[in-house]
């Protein structure tokens, strides 16, 4: 899955435009993104969406791997607590994300590289807002380098 992400670092093309991988649950946040789209709500084109059945499907590994493979930020979004299509998937996910969140902080990874949100299918405006917020935060942080695989950057630089 992640092997397909373009390894060229976003800085190569001049201005820093963050590249953010967004894991969106099928039932709420993906539908929220869809609603934002069909409502023609503007938000930055910084996100690359990966649709997942449930936020509970998002293994913390995916998030770390995205950062290793060159994402400047990651957004994970699912149904609001109590609204999970599978009833409790997001509650279980929340504990996992809490561990990852605290561990990232411990490792000294900038808070804001990885963001979590709950966005329902009816919240198109909120989805756009979350993306704007996350994009601005990552833009302010600059390109991600702590977890990134330096071999990919070198390769991209060699390729010009």
């Amino acid at each position, binding site marked *: *899955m992640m*092997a397909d992400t373009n390894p060229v670092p976003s800085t190569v093309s001049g201005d820093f435009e963050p590249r953010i991988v967004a894991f969106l649950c099928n039932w709420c946040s993906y539908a929220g993104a869809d609603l934002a789209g069909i409502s023609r709500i503007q938000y930055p084109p910084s996100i690359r969406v990966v649709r997942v059945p449930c936020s509970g499907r998002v293994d*913390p*590994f995916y998030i*770390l*791997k995205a950062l*290793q493979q060159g994402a400047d930020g990651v957004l994970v979004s699912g149904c609001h*607590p*109590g609204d999970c299509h599978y009833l*409790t998937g997001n*509650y*279980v996910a*929340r*504990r*996992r*994300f*809490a*561990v*990852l*969140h*605290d*561990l990232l*902080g*411990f*490792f*000294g*990874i*900038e808070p804001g590289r990885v*963001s*979590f*949100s*709950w966005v329902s299918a009816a919240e198109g405006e909120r989805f756009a807002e*979350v993306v704007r*917020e996350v994009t601005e935060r990552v833009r302010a942080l600059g390109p991600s380098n*702590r*977890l*990134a*695989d*330096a*071999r990919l950057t070198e390769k991209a630089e060699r390729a010009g």
Partner: protein
Amino acid sequence: MPRPTAVEQQLRARARELLEKREVAGVLGFRAGTLPGTCVPFLATEPGDADRLVLNRDCAANLAAWLPRLRHRGRIAVVARGPDSRSIVNLVKENQVERDRLHIIGVADPDDTQPVRNPVVFDEFLGERAPDSPPDDYADIREFEALPPAERWQALLDELSRCIRCYACRQVCPNCYCPTCFVDASRPAWVGRTPDPSDNVLFHMVRAIHMAGRCVECGACAKACPIGIPLMIINRKVSLIVRDRFGSVPGTDPDAPLPLTAFDSEDREEFIR
């Protein structure tokens, strides 16, 4: 050979008896290693093996790690100190070990640095109980956390960059029984199989996450590491997260679910937008 301690004598006598009466197929404990100051896990299967059993501070392994592999050997007696017993509690919850096919011989951990020295579960107890360890304040972790983030990152990166990915830490850990570890999977190859710093950090962060709510801080992984990477700082941080967020101390409550398989609708979510 040093003279056997009182608890070693009791242990040997009891192991001999269990094996003579054929009450168990084996007694899992430790024997002296080939190098001085080392001990290795040992399955006594004949009454004559009993006298080789030892118990001292050099017994670095967590014996629970051997239990899933001995599952098909019939009833097994296992020597369990605090950490071994905590891992047994976890493995029973994870359906890797059947409690009723184990005979747990509880002993106090000779290692007085262990946060939990006395066994949590046992069928019989030999020797004296150890005094309860003072409550862990995680001072080492708090001290590290007081460093600025960039310094923490550099310190951990420097340590983890030295990892040669031998996976000794995984092999000795009672939590690592997966038939195919995520680092060994080749289709897809989740983690690059190189000791590149980014692959190493990825391995260690995911390993840490897999330990959440399960690591009993036995220290076996850190002691097995040939490079001397201080893995306990990562493991202990994970324990602290799990204790602070979910009120869970792994393997100390046989009736509580594993924290990462459970949830509370009121779990703190201050980090979620």
